[in-house]
Each structure stands twice: as C-alpha cells, then as structure tokens.
C-alpha cells in the first residue's frame, strides 16, 4: 500500500522506493504511539500521502498542470484493453497533486471521500470536488476518442 501510493503518485520507481522506505523508518521511530493494527494502517497511509507529496514537490520544479490542460489521447483503446490502463495512469499522472492523490486513494485504496479527507487533511467538499472534476475530465477525454461506448 505504501509503495503503491508513492508509485502511482510519483511515477518513479526509485523515488517511490525511497519514499516508502522513509515511511517505514518513520513508523519505526513512532511505534510507541501506534495503538492497533488499524491505527498502523491509517498512520502508514497518511504518512505515505504526506511523504509522496513532499517528494514530488522536492523533485520537480515542473509547473503544475491545470485540470483542464491534461494531455489528449493519441490512440483509441477500448474498455478492458490493457492499453487503456496505461493511458489512464498517464492521464492521472498529469493531474495536479491534490486531485491526483484523491484519485489514487479513491481507486487504489478504495477509500470513501470522508476517509480520503481525513487522510489528506482537507475538507470533504474539496475531496468530492477533486474526484468529480477529475472523473468528468477523464471521461470527456476518453469519450471524445470514442472510448467508453460499449
């Protein structure tokens, strides 16, 4: 879960590995404060989110892309096509950091918006807005290419 959050967010295996290691080293120093396995899971996810965002900010000085400016697709895969998965990952990678993390927590971790809000430390309404806007944007981009018409 920790590595996966970092990998999907950073799209860099080495940086994701380093970030995940940092999270577990941090857990080791905070073990005394961990009350249960469920608390450990919540703690790990929360710190993975924070460290991944920090790592992305440190790594890149590349400008954040506005949600509306996400790249257009150049090929036309169909639902269920493995290429579509790769394409979706690339599209998500170009989202601004907060919507990107909200989408990862929603669809990788299967968290509901309230849990995402708690994990990311942002208002519930903001989480819902990030997810709705991101989905609408992805859907629009895919449908314009004829993807999604079953």
């Amino acid at each position, binding site marked *: *879960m920790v*590595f*996966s959050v970092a*990998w*999907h967010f950073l799209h860099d*295996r080495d940086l*994701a*590995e380093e970030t*995940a*290691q940092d999270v*577990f*080293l941090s857990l*080791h120093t905070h073990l005394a404060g961990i009350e249960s396995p469920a608390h450990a899971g919540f703690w790990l996810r929360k710190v993975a989110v924070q460290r991944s965002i920090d790592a992305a900010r440190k790594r890149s000085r590349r400008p954040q892309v506005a949600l509306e400016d996400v790249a257009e697709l150049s090929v036309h895969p169909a*639902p*269920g096509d493995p290429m*579509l*998965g*790769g394409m*979706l*990952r690339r599209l*998500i990678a170009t989202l601004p950091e907060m919507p990107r993390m909200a*989408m*990862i927590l*929603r*669809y*990788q971790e*299967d968290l509901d918006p309230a849990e995402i809000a708690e994990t990311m430390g942002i208002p519930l309404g903001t989480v819902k807005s990030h997810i709705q806007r991101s*989905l609408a944007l*992805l*859907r629009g981009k*895919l449908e314009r290419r004829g993807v*999604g018409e*079953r």
Partner: protein
Amino acid sequence: MDWLEQELAQALARKEPAAGFDRRVRARLHRRPRWLAIAATIIVTIGAGEAWRQHQGQLAKEQVMTAMRITGSKLNRVQLQLKGTEQ
C-alpha cells in the same frame, strides 16, 4: 461503479516494490545509529568548542580583573606617597 471507475480501479491496482524491500528498509534502519553517532559527535564537538570559548572568555575576564586590582593598588600607593610628600 461505472465502466470508467472500474477501469480506474484496475489501472490503479496496488503495486509491489521490488523484491527485498524489507531487507533494504532493515539495512537503512541499522545504518541509522552510525548517522546518529556522527550527529552526536558533531553536537559534542560544537558543544566542546563553545565550552572552550566560554573558558577562554572567563580566563580573559579574570586577567583583566587581576590587572585592574594591581593597577588599583599601585594607584593607592602612589596616592599615599603623594600625600606624604605634600605633608
């Protein structure tokens, strides 16, 4: 979940780190004390330097005080001699 959300759930399925992740974390964990030792050494060195500077400052202050005491007693003696001369 509609088709897009299903595709997203598949696309963002969990990924595992390369084999040996646990070992690499443990290796870093064991490297930590060395860094702690280095950090402790640096802190002690800085602390010792500060203590040495304070000690030197104290010595200098004592020397100044001694010099002032000597000067004071010499002045007293000169004043007494002057008084004796006047009388």
